[in-house]
């Protein structure tokens, strides 16, 4: 964990109230697009790449979130491919894996951790 902390940069993405409850928004970080989700029901935050790997569409932040056997997930609005918000793995039978990012909330601000190598 120590090494992980060292290579992470936490950047402030938005305020808590900017993200709809049980929904997502898209955050711009340099040239990256990150989907940020506030899973209010579980009091959890998740962040993944915004691009759905199936058809390379920048859309996951507009997807519906939910759970499958308690695993938190997001469904892409285009073709309803679903991905684990924890591991980024595709739950609907494809090989894709999403990049995921750590999230923390401090003083009403939401921070996303990005590696700085």
């Amino acid at each position, binding site marked *: 964990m120590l090494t992980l902390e060292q290579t992470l940069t936490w950047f402030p993405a938005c305020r808590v109230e900017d993200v709809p409850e*049980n929904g997502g928004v898209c955050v711009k970080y340099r040239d990256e697009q990150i989907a940020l989700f506030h899973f209010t029901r579980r009091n959890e935050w998740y962040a993944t790449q915004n691009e759905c790997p199936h058809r390379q569409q920048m859309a996951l932040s507009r997807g*519906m979130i939910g759970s499958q056997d308690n695993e938190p997930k997001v469904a892409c609005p285009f073709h309803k491919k679903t991905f684990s918000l924890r591991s980024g793995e595709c739950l609907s039978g494809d090989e894709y894996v999403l990049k995921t990012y750590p999230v923390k909330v401090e003083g009403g601000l939401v921070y996303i951790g990005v590696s700085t190598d």
Partner: protein
Amino acid sequence: MKIVIIGNGMVGYKFCEKLLAKQHQHPLELIVFGEEMRPAYDRVHLSEYFAGKTADELTLAPATWYAEKGIRLHLGDPVQTIDRAHKTVHCFSGITESYDYLIMATGSSAFVPPIPGVEKQGVFIYRTIEDLEMMAAYARHVKKGAVIGGGLLGLEAAKAMLDLGIADTQVIEFAPRLMPRQIDEAGSHTLRTKLEALGLHIRTNTNTTAILGDDHITGMQFADDSTIDVDMLVISAGIKPRDEVAKLCGLETGHRGGIVVNDHLQTNDPSIFAIGECALHKGMIYGLVAPGYEMADVVATNLTGGAKSFTGYDMSTKLKLIGVDVASFGEPFVSPKDGRSIVWEDTLKGVYKRINISNDGKQLLGGILVGDAEQYNMLLQTCKNKVILPPNPEDIILGERGGSGDAGAGVTSLPDEALICSCEGISKKMICDAVSEQGHETVDAIKKCTKAGTGCGGCVPMLKDLVTHTLKAQGKYVRNVLCEHFQYSRQELFDLVKIHDLKSYDAALDKLGNGDGCEVCKPAIASIIASLWNEMILQRGNATAQDSNDRFLANIQKGGTYSVVPRIPGGEITPEKLIVIGQVAQKYHLYTKITGGQRIDLFGAHVSDLPAIWEALIAAGFESGHAYGKALRTVKSCVGSTWCRFGLHDSVSFAIRIEERYRGLRAPHKLKSAVSGCIRECAEAQSKDFGIIATEKGWNLYVCGNGGSKPQHALLLATDLDSETCIRYIDRFLMFYIKTADPLTRTATWLNKMEGGISYLKNVVVHDSLGIAEQLEAEMQVLVDNYKCEWKEVVDNPELRKRFNHFVNAPEEKDPTVQFEPMRSQKRATEWK
């Protein structure tokens, strides 16, 4: 074992297929000689060739099939002589081939009566694809057509003439009535009336004495010396077995034609068999395909070590002749000493039904159906399997009156051995086993696995019922739950959400579900909430429970941009509004296209531009078109009586009224409607979830149609309604659908699954059999009264507007990955990978 088959028609082909499907002790060598240039094709559906089917589509199996199976197929090469002493055949091209067994499947040719002048140009027979091609080539300049023969084949030929565009066609029949062999006089009369209403001229009791004209036909003369002008004639007066090669080699033939066979279909030469229309079995020629297939099976069985006899065949048949159902089964005619008849006739709709019942009233002996043969399969099975009739036998053709549901228990009452597909000889048990033991759970899978329903196709509706019943019996559909988060069906949830007065998805999940929800239950519950209360769908935390399109009130398209569809009720729009749409499209660089529902779609809008686009549209008087929602889309209209010289009523005004009444109504699936101002039906109302067609006296209301991948015509719910009653019926119909359908089920599928079908729906909506009509109307009125344009609410609400940005931390920036390419002076989305 070397087998030579003479003839590559439907029965000859079926023999090859059946033989190969059986177990063999000895290697098989199969050689087929066919006279025609094409491999065997579906002659039963020949008339569909003019209706647009290609020769390839009619082909039963391509030439490659024969090659793959190791069959040597010689086409365009008829066998000319058989040398029975040396067991060889000699054919047209000069090949001589030996055989161990010889199968005659030579079929039949058209019977041409010896009328002077039959050799003239423009006189055709109706038998092969070549005949059809020649007819089509000749028909181009033909104005007046005629068909000799008012039987089954003659009426098929008349249909072909109509399909060729010869509207002025006469049918000439020697007998006093049409189809004298299959149906009785009253049924024949009903058929004649219906065909005449379709524009056919019919002459019965008419004997043609001469075909007039020099080298080509110009007219016909009859026994009473009257004449008519005719440019083209098709003779389709019966068949003549092809037995000339058989005769030549000394096989026994009947004096009116046909190769004589015993119960094994064996001729007087034990190595030679005859099957299909060339075979004469106990004095009978079987001119239908099903007995031909049965004969093929008998011979194939006996040649592979089995034992089977041909003991005659039921001649029951169901046809659609020029759009009119005609069926006869069992004993269509019965003498008073053998039984009694129940006859029902509706001269208004042109329906005639007759059933013959044993004198003790217990068994169905046979019958005739004209104009409506939907019950044919059930009646045929009831007859064949000697199922005991209900106490009021008329229920089996009229349904139980004064109650709900169908008479009898349908397919469940049939015994296991009931033959469902007579073409392929497949029993009820075989089909049920394929479902329950082999897991084939769709009609297509059943067709593939058992071949049932692949012949004439008449049994397909029963296959569907059997699949459903078998699955139900296994308990497969018993728990129809929404998903892992809700252990209820949509219908149950609808009632529960209402009873508990739940207005948000989260409240419903807390009260009725478990877990955190998913992309299945979220939009389903959100839709129920919208259908119940009709509140703004993006409030009370419901925005993130909506499907993506509903969440952004626009349709997401390739590349992540959205399309915008303003409502244009009834398709009526002022020039001023058209200009505004054009200006908005120019300003925001949108691709414009007219939709199928008479409105205009603007594509390529960035999510962050949507509120501004709508602000401009709303300022010009537009409202949301709900193209993004499972909701009422459009009510299409023809121009109607205000301009059209045929229009009976003002269809545009009524369409606008309907569209404005139900705009924003959310339902289990999208809803489309249309209003046509007359029977020409330019608005295509019969392809809609609810369609309205003007009549002299009011409106006819059709329901549960759709286009899409499985097109289905809407069914008539009520006739000659005044506008107010029409709207009340639509209120009831829509509310009943919204309350009871499964998620994402269109009205057509909903009706298909409904027990009792359209008659049940009619009872609920028109006759108020459940006593809920008033409640349904009241519930609809609440929704109508609560309607607000949701885009106007967004435009006016800064908090809601904020949600329409691509980047939460850079609201002024657009998604840089969105790309367009130019196309035909507009733009398109860049293709995805």
